[in-house]
């Protein structure tokens, strides 16, 4: 069923975040640009350490100080650049207009406070609700995420719940104030497979009902394929390919994307060895000149050693275009060969 997708509500332009470490000052997020339309689900995919979570935290300005700083770029949301807002204004956005759900349900909730108090806290912060209705609103939010018997559950403590239930509670907290955007940072990675699909279905339902826009961070291509409308592939702090999911997955242009897709074992292929990409992503302090992927890329040409490739449009055979940062794309007919 086609989704109702509206205008662009979130536009990230050239976001840069620096990290102060013993090795010096590093760029964890190095010029990331994303766009999200209303009602759309954008997937961000990449290996561990590529900067996906840091990008999300940078959008909301919750990078771990004092070591990390967002140093450049714009985050346009509803016509405002979030980077220019004061801390107080940002706090209204966080949880109110843009919410986030974290990866590990076991540690996301404060162990010494009840579920109810943690949900009502979010509501009280962002919505003008009279005190006696707060708990009712919280119970309603829990009901929305399919927590059974929410009236009892609000009195419980986190350790009395299962992982899947806790993740739903995090979800309840996130949607309790009707945000426009939900950023989900690998929310199902720590859950059982069966619980995973329930959770994803829940997110889809909420999206259909409320027109919520979702940014879904994951390393799981299956989830991207089933949940997302657009996808951005990140590598070492930059986006290397982005566009509609079907276009990117059917005709990947960046060798990294193709390599990632190849390494996913599928049931219909008979492989003797699981494919894994040889080598490692470059260390943050040790990036090579030119394209950062070239040391692992089987298609590298001399040009790749001198200049980092800009975003080049790749024409799709199915009619939809997408964008990738690879020199090979200068030949517009080139499609990354299957392995």
């Amino acid at each position, binding site marked *: 069923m086609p989704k109702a997708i509206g205008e662009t509500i979130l536009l990230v332009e050239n976001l840069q975040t620096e990290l102060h470490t013993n090795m010096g000052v590093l760029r964890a997020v190095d010029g990331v640009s994303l766009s999200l339309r209303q009602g759309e689900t954008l997937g961000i995919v990449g290996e561990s350490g590529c900067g996906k979570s840091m990008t999300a935290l940078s959008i*909301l300005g*919750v990078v*771990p100080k004092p070591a990390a700083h967002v140093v450049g770029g714009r985050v346009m949301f509803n016509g405002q650049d979030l980077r220019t807002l004061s801390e107080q204004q940002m*706090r*209204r*956005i*966080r*949880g*109110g207009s843009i*919410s*986030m759900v*974290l990866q*590990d349900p076991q*540690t*996301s*909730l*404060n*162990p*010494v*406070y009840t579920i109810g108090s943690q949900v009502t*806290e*979010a509501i009280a*912060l*962002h919505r003008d609700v009279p005190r006696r209705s707060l708990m009712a609103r919280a119970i309603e939010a829990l009901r929305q995420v399919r927590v059974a018997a929410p009236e009892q559950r609000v009195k419980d*403590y986190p*350790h*009395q719940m299962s992982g899947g239930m806790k993740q739903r509670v*995090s979800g309840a*907290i996130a949607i309790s104030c009707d945000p426009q955007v939900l950023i989900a940072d690998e929310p199902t990675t720590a859950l059982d497979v069966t619980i995973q699909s329930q959770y994803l279905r829940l997110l889809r339902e909420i999206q259909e009902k409320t027109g919520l826009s979702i940014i879904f961070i994951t390393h799981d291509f299956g989830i991207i394929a089933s949940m997302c409308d657009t996808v951005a592939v990140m590598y070492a702090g930059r986006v290397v390919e982005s566009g509609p999911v079907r276009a990117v997955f059917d005709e990947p242009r960046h060798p990294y994307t193709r390599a990632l897709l190849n390494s996913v074992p599928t049931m219909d292929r008979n492989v003797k060895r699981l494919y894994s990409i040889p080598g490692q992503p470059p260390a943050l302090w040790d990036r090579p000149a030119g394209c950062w992927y070239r040391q692992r890329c089987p298609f590298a040409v001399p040009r790749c050693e001198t200049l980092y490739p800009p975003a080049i449009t790749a024409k799709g055979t199915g009619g939809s275009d997408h964008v990738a940062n690879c020199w090979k794309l200068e030949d517009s007919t080139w499609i990354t060969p299957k392995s």
Partner: protein
Amino acid sequence: MQRYLLYRVVQSLVTLLAISVIIFGLSRLSGNPVDALLPDNAAPQEAAVVMHEWGLDRPLHVQYFAFIRNAVQGNLGNSLKWSGETALGMVWQRLPATLQLGGFAIIISTLIAIPIGVLAAVHKGGLFDSFGKMVALLGQAVPPFWLGIVLIWVFAVYWNVFPTSGRGGFEHMVMPAIAMGWYQVAALMRLTRSSTLEVLDNEYIKLARLKGVPEWRVIWVHALRNAAIAPLTYFGVIIGYIFTGSVVIETVFAWPGTGLLAIEAIRARDYPVVQAVVLTFAVVFIIANLIVDILYAFVDPRIRYNDNE
């Protein structure tokens, strides 16, 4: 949780019993307490008579059981120095003073140490943190009795801000409380700081910020409640130190509590009173630890509800 409490109570009783054995044993170590009572040139018959009166010629374990039986009934003997008073009676007279000073010291130590510890962690590496560390190190190096004397000298004699000694209201309590609590402030502060640092690293703190919770609330509502758990368990130790510290501090400031009583009793070789003080201290200490354990269960819901799940 009931099971946990029951276990702790039983454990406390066992400890108390063991302490009583130790105290009893030590008193008989040196031979006869009677030697202190009699003049040196007493004839052996006189000694034998007194020994019999005191029941000291019976076998050791019989003496011990008599001791326990009496103790449970509240009879710990009569004071040798203060004629007409029972040993326990003397202790009861003086206990409120010690509790007053000790309680005051504990309260202000906690009120000072925990916020400083939290702030040191929040501004880790900052001026506050370094200052706090210095204070902590000094706190653990300065001997409390010397600190008390220096305080008297500076504030009571030189500047005449506080009275030099004696029991009384607030201005009488300030200096002794500082001298008593100084060491605890240092230790508690370090503990709070490291506990807060650990807590701040947790994901739920990040989530609180992502919810839009203002920073002060993140620290003082979300983090503090978790960070306070570890220092709370240290409270039992603090109470113990405060009581032992009372012996020294009350001596310095002439505060008429049980600590001073113990010293006076020792000087007069009034053994029953010393014994009574020590036993009372031990009981108070054990009860305090028990209360701390109960409080601990209240603060950390994971302990409270573990039996039911």
